[in-house]
């Protein structure tokens, strides 16, 4: 394999160590959550009820998950399945789904064509959105999919915007981010960075 050197033999032990450290980070996060919210409940701080609910939810999910590792009985497995498939997964999906409602409200109230650029942005967004969905694709389904006229089918227009306009722009942004990251890293290494976290030159 390419890239072998005197450190190659240590890759596996380092991999094991970093895996264990990563697992500790999980435990540390859990300890942090429990201690902050536990204190809020103990001292009856404002909104302590939400902290109590959070702690209850952590226990409600953690107990069956850990229990099933030590007790392989079908009852415990069933209990875990009820909590996970019936509770945790749907709640997780619901929290993410709320975003869709915010988008609808925001799109209706805030998306206004006040400039030419906003108009171009809206036009591109509408073409891409229509091109993504089957009912939208139906609008131009009557256009033959061969020769030049196929370029006017909405899914091909949408694909053109994504591959010929969006893709070069993404490349340019990635390149800019890469160059900016390198420049910032160089400034840090050379102790040239001044800002919120750097009070004096080292």
């Amino acid at each position, binding site marked *: *394999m390419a890239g072998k050197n005197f450190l190659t033999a240590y890759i*596996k032990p380092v991999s094991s160590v970093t895996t264990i450290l990563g697992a500790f980070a999980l435990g540390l996060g859990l300890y942090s959550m429990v201690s902050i919210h536990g204190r809020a409940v103990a001292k009856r701080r404002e909104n302590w009820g939400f902290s109590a609910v959070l702690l209850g939810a952590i226990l409600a999910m953690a107990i069956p998950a850990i229990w099933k590792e030590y007790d392989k009985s079908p009852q415990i497995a069933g209990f875990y399945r009820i909590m996970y498939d019936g509770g945790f997964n749907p709640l997780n999906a619901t929290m993410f789904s709320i975003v869709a409602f915010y988008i609808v409200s925001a799109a209706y109230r805030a998306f206004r064509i006040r400039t030419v650029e906003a108009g171009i942005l809206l036009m591109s967004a509408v073409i891409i959105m229509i091109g993504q969905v089957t009912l939208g694709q139906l609008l131009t389904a009557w256009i033959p999919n061969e020769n030049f006229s196929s370029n006017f089918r909405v899914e091909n227009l949408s694909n053109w915007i994504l591959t010929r306009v969006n893709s070069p722009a993404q490349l340019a942004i990635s390149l800019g981010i890469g160059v900016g990251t390198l420049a910032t890293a160089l400034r840090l290494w050379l102790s040239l960075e001044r800002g919120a976290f750097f009070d004096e030159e080292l």
Partner: protein
Amino acid sequence: MDNFLRLIVRAQRIDRRILYLLLALCIAVPIAVDVPQPRPVVMPETQSLYNTIESIAKDPVESKKLAIVCTNYSGGTLAENQTQNEAIVRHLMRLKLKFAVFAFATPQGRELGRAVADKLAEEYKYVYGSDYVDLGFCPPDAIEVRLKAAVDDLPGAFEKDSAGAALTSLPIMAQVKTVNDISLIVEVTPSETLPPWLQFFQRAGEKPIPTVYCPTAVMGPEKYPLLKSGQLQGMMLGLRGASEYETLLGVDGFGHRGGASLSLSHLLIILLILLGNLGMFAERRLRRQQGRA
């Protein structure tokens, strides 16, 4: 005309709860009721993903290697990623390709990916340990080192499956030693989890491993440059991509049913944006008329 303009302006003040209700109906009704809808047009990136897996199955050497299906999603993106995962795993099982389930971004991903594999294993008579394996979860901070270790010794780097059985004891891992024994990398994810594969694993062997990407729709546009550069051999964009893939497979899964919800909700959002802008222009016109009067 003025009455029409005033009506449009008044429509700007629709209670947001009505908007939420409309959206909920657009999403829920097509899922609850089977709405007849046409099959989607298959986009080139989805076709490319399908062709990649088909070509691996037809190759006598590659078809005996192990595919890695990395399921880095959680419950929040079940609708898109789970549907994509099901479509991909169904295709792999249909072609009798061996695969491993793995996750490193979230522990839930491994569980969800394994659940999909177990569910479809009953249908395609796949046996755990011989036809598919669960490589477990790796914390995200340790993934780069884990992949670097897996390049030269895959069973040694992962050591055990999620149940604690040594990988070397499983029949599926008998011929899998290094990165050269991997036929395909499938990344199903709503987040930026592709770079470790591309940087540390894809091109570490004798030849590049075909890599396909199944992101949520919002993540997809960022990765079109990788399709062009040849680092990705296919992409399945969100629920629409899953629907296209189901069309290629000839199955009627959630991708197809969810496509109707997607269509209606997208059209609703477009309509509301147009209505909102019509209202803005109507308001300006009324103000100009009042100014002249």
